[in-house]
């Protein structure tokens, strides 16, 4: 188990390095941070001077080296758009995104898993059809459109929930529904297929031959197996939510990392964007790592490798 975790961790580091390099390369080529830092109306000499100060006239690989070593010392740099240390900014925006992501995942789970399970237990029934229709519809609805519709319906016409901001728990209800709806299809299908597969498996036949049935069969023999793949996907989904709730956060005016990233992009604050890309990638890697260990804990077969 320990070796397993160690191997995964080394791999995660490799991935992190590659991803950070990709982010650095992709976003460095197209921009000139020096001009941005110099501010409006700066003379070319000043820009050149800043460029020198920042080491921007060095070869790209050397720049990457400096960048990396700064990060490893905990120095994420200072945003010239926000005029604050990037680390502070990230920590400021993190709680909203984290809360939103967790809430959305929670919403997705409480809808998707029961629905997927029931759909699998009664294939081709009305509830199965309903679940599949829901999945297909949720998949086809643009996030921002759903957000606007929910604002109109539950924010204005029937004003139950607050529409924008992130001040209270209630503010998270609509965004969590919107963001959660995005994951419902995948998790539900996975649960459905998982339960369907497990129900048709030889060991469930064995369990039924032993006299297990109904809820006890489900809880004692089915769910753990059926939900194994869901764990991995949940990690992926949560990772994407942490990095991808740009639209939801924008429409609901929530001050999370997603909108922060969007603002930084359109603000041309590429160093901050680079840092965010790396951060999201690291979060993602960490989550999948976690999911892997969780999976290994749940599924003894994996512990051998």
């Amino acid at each position, binding site marked *: 188990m320990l070796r397993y975790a160690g191997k995964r961790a080394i791999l995660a580091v490799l991935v992190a390095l590659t991803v950070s390099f990709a982010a650095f390369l992709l976003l460095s080529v197209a921009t000139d941070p020096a001009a941005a830092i110099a501010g409006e109306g700066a003379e070319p000499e000043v820009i050149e001077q800043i460029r020198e100060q920042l080491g921007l006239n060095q070869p790209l690989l050397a720049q990457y080296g400096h960048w990396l070593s700064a990060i490893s010392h905990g120095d994420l740099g200072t945003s010239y758009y926000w005029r604050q240390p990037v680390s502070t900014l990230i920590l400021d925006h993190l709680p909203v995104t984290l809360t939103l992501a967790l809430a959305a995942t929670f919403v997705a789970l409480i809808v998707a898993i029961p629905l997927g399970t029931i759909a699998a237990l009664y294939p081709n029934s009305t509830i199965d059809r309903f679940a599949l229709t829901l999945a297909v519809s949720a998949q086809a609805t643009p996030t921002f459109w759903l957000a606007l519709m929910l604002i109109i319906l539950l924010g204005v016409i029937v004003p139950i929930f607050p529409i924008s901001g992130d001040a209270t728990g209630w503010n998270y209800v609509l965004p969590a529904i919107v963001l959660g709806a995005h994951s419902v299809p995948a998790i539900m299908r996975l649960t459905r297929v998982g339960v369907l597969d497990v129900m048709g498996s030889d060991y469930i036949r064995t369990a039924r031959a032993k006299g*297990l049935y109904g809820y006890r069969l489900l809880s004692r023999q089915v769910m753990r197996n059926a939900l194994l793949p869901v764990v991995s996907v949940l990690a992926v989904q949560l990772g994407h939510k942490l990095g991808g709730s740009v639209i939801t956060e924008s429409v609901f005016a929530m001050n999370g990392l997603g909108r922060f990233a969007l603002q930084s992009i359109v603000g041309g604050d590429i160093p901050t964007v680079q840092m965010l890309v790396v951060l999201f990638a690291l979060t993602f890697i960490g989550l999948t790592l976690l999911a892997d260990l969780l999976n290994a804990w749940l*599924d003894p077969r994996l512990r051998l490798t």
Partner: protein
Amino acid sequence: MKAPQTPLLEVSDLSVTLPVRESKLHAVRGVSFSLARGEALGIVGESGSGKSMTSLALMNLLPKSAERNASVLRLGEHDLLAMDQIEFAKSVAARRMAMIFQEPMTSLNPVYTIGRQLTETMTIHGTAGPKEARERAIDLLDRIGVPDAKNRLAQYPHELSGGLRQRVMIAMMLMNAPDLLIADEPTTALDVTVQASILELLAELRKELGMALILVSHDLGVVSQSVDKIAVMYAGELIETGTVKDVLSSPQHPYTRGLLASIPAPRGTGERLPSIPGTVPPLFALPSGCTFADRCSYAETKCRAAPPPMQSAGEGHLYRCILPLNTTGSSVRTAVSAKSQIHSHDNGSLLSARNVSRTFTVRAGLLGKGKALKAVDDVSLDVAQGEIVALVGESGSGKSTLARILLGLQESDRGEVTISGRPILSISPFERAKLIQPVFQDPYSSLNPRKTIGQTVMRPLELHGIGSAQDRRKEAERVMELVGLPRRLLNNYPPQLSGGQRQRVAIARAIVLQPKILICDEPTSALDVSVQAQILNLLLDLRDELGLSYLLITHDLAVVNCIATRVAVMHRGRIVESGEKDAVLRTPRDPYTQTLLRSVQTMKFSANPRAADGAAGLQ
């Protein structure tokens, strides 16, 4: 009938229908039998005969959509028909009647410990507390021959070998000491040597616990060893039933006779096996007459008019045929005899392997450490012109790796393979293809499902640029005829063909380039007995007509005994014994060969081979 007591299990007029898309599959029809306490019944049949459905129907394990009907279905005092699922699960399942399955690898839940799965059988029924259940589990595992039983409880299924898993499975089902154990192909997935020990164990347990047993199998050998009564099923019907002795030594139904005759038995080299033409029909429509009529050479018009009734051929020996008792025995045609002589192997070795070794490095993950695995270890082997050399071994013995090396598809680490004296690796792929070709085991995966039969057979010619499109088509048709396939299948896709037909296509593809030698890797092990005989006969025919030589890789000693000329036994990557067939099979010297031979489930009450040869529909 003088049943001493009321039977333990009584089944009358059992039928199972399964909806398949718009139509209905009549999987089991009108099956009746009974079983006394402590009695063992073997249900035998080929794939599609309905034998598994019958056992699942008894255990209430049919798919949800399936429909079960019967006039009587009774286990002891329980009327199974009157019980709903929950009641059955509470009071019958695993308490009175238990079942073990074919796949020990997948029949245990992989994420829970053995201990949990064993004790659960008792705790869910409340027949014992967790502690007692645990003790009982240890006792049972001990009894069943699982070493170190106590510590096994904390292990997970994947940590056990297949044989051990099957034992755990048996233990799990015996926790509540049921009256009846149904074993559905309990040994099919296991190696021969393990198979024997499991069957032995079942027999012992049955006697010890006074438990009745239903053993479902396609293998008459397996069944004949361990049961009192046999029921032969064909196309969803029970066509013959009786004591083992009655059914095996004087089979009455033409199908039973054919089945018995198709079992590969030792015979003169080159002699053809008797076989039943065709395959088991899927029954979407209820048959108007006898379901076997299409494959039966004794069929008459009235056979197709109405379902034949059960006839009695003695006490408790029933068969479903209109032919009078023992009529099929006398009017027998013998099998076609060998057409040609066996070529002597003086012409030197055609395919020759010298000291071939191959080691694999098994690596776990991107950063895992490598582990060496010797798949083939210093193997030398020769196949001479016209020979049929059998390479025998259990799974994991390295025989398939050796096959790939001999085909030139994989390089060996050491040693050399030569064809007609030339090193195989010096021969270009195109040239090599014209010398040596493979025939594989699985008729389902050996054909590209995206290509028509014609495309598959013509592909080698096309690739080699032989002839025009028209020429190639003609050649394909010729070869199809040679392997006994109708020309109309040329435009069909593999899924539309039966297993036997597919294997014929695979052979056609292999011989279309006119190679000198075929390497047949378990060519019949996925086929039913009756079809197996057809394919073995085809191989013999082709050898005679085309002068082919074969290297026959198999685990089935019966097949070896039937058609091989020489035998090599492989064990853990090495050839432990080789020589003339008779020498090896009759006087084995290597201990492994001896174990192997002992494990073979030979037919008890073997019928007179000549009489059996005269069975219906033999070619």
